[in-house]
């Protein structure tokens, strides 16, 4: 088997640097209000995008299970506010749907 270590190091840097640089560079800088506002919205916009991306890129036979799992978890956490319970319910529901459709 060939060794992939140079590739692994390169990929490691390619993932680490975008994670590290803003943390260090912005940590004690005065940030403009507009920019702060922009940064404040990032968790909401990125989560929405990751969720919608998960749905539109899911295999067509997994789409219903994916949407159902996301929906039940969202609704439960909206009503009860319990993260672990919501996620487990999402997993269980999508598991049931996948098994029914096989």
């Amino acid at each position, binding site marked *: 088997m060939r060794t992939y270590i140079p590739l692994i190091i390169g990929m490691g840097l390619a993932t680490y640097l975008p994670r590290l640089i*803003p943390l260090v560079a912005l940590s004690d800088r005065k940030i403009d209000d507009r920019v702060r506002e922009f940064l404040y919205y990032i968790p909401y916009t990125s989560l*929405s*995008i990751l*969720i919608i991306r998960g749905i539109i890129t899911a295999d067509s036979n997994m789409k219903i299970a994916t949407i159902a799992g996301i929906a039940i978890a969202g609704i439960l956490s909206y009503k009860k506010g319990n993260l672990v319970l919501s996620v*487990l319910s999402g997993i269980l529901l999508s*598991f049931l749907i996948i098994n029914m459709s096989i």
Partner: protein
Amino acid sequence: MIVEKSIHYKVKQGIVVALPIIIGYFPIAMAFGLMAKNTSISFLDTSLFSMMVFAGASQFMALDLIGAGVTWANIILATFLLNLRHLMMTASLAVEFKSIPKKFLPLIGFGITDETFSVISFNKDKISTSFVLVLNFLSYSSWVIGTMVGYIVGEIIPAPLQTSLSIGLYAMFAALLFPEINKSKNIFFLSIISAIVYIILFYSNLFTSGWDIILGIIISSALGVVFFINSSKEREK
């Protein structure tokens, strides 16, 4: 009166919020381990992938590209583009990490993924060095150990269970986001706007995967600033 919470308590909080990530990462990491084995990568290299890269989507993509005979330089470039979104995420976290000593930032930065970022962002009141380190460490351990277990015994988990466990990560994103929608109308509209912006970017086919995500985040967050500039002044910072 603010009660100083003990390290023990912060560690416990970290463990509780890490649970969904641990549950979600493990089977995906197992799938990675198994696929790497099928791509004839050694156990050592497979483990090193998860230990040093620690980025799910990039690692799966790398397997694809290795199989397709793409050069290593191009795989590294593609990894960089795919992870550029973390620039925006860690920039957003930097504002919240004021209380964390600078010497811990290189270590904490290494553990920021879509999932740990989301959990930290929606538990801002809990942010402390020990809370973030525990959360990151447990998520990382689940990813690395899952990879190794998958390489050795990956065949034993039935595919439907694997899929539904990986849907669990999206369920977690939704479980984090929905209660926030409840708190503010602006957040609700912004979530809808983000979804629409991303759908347009995705189906326009103008951008490769990675660029569409980061552009989506930038455009919709900027739209948020433009649309809600007045209401934001009411929110005390």
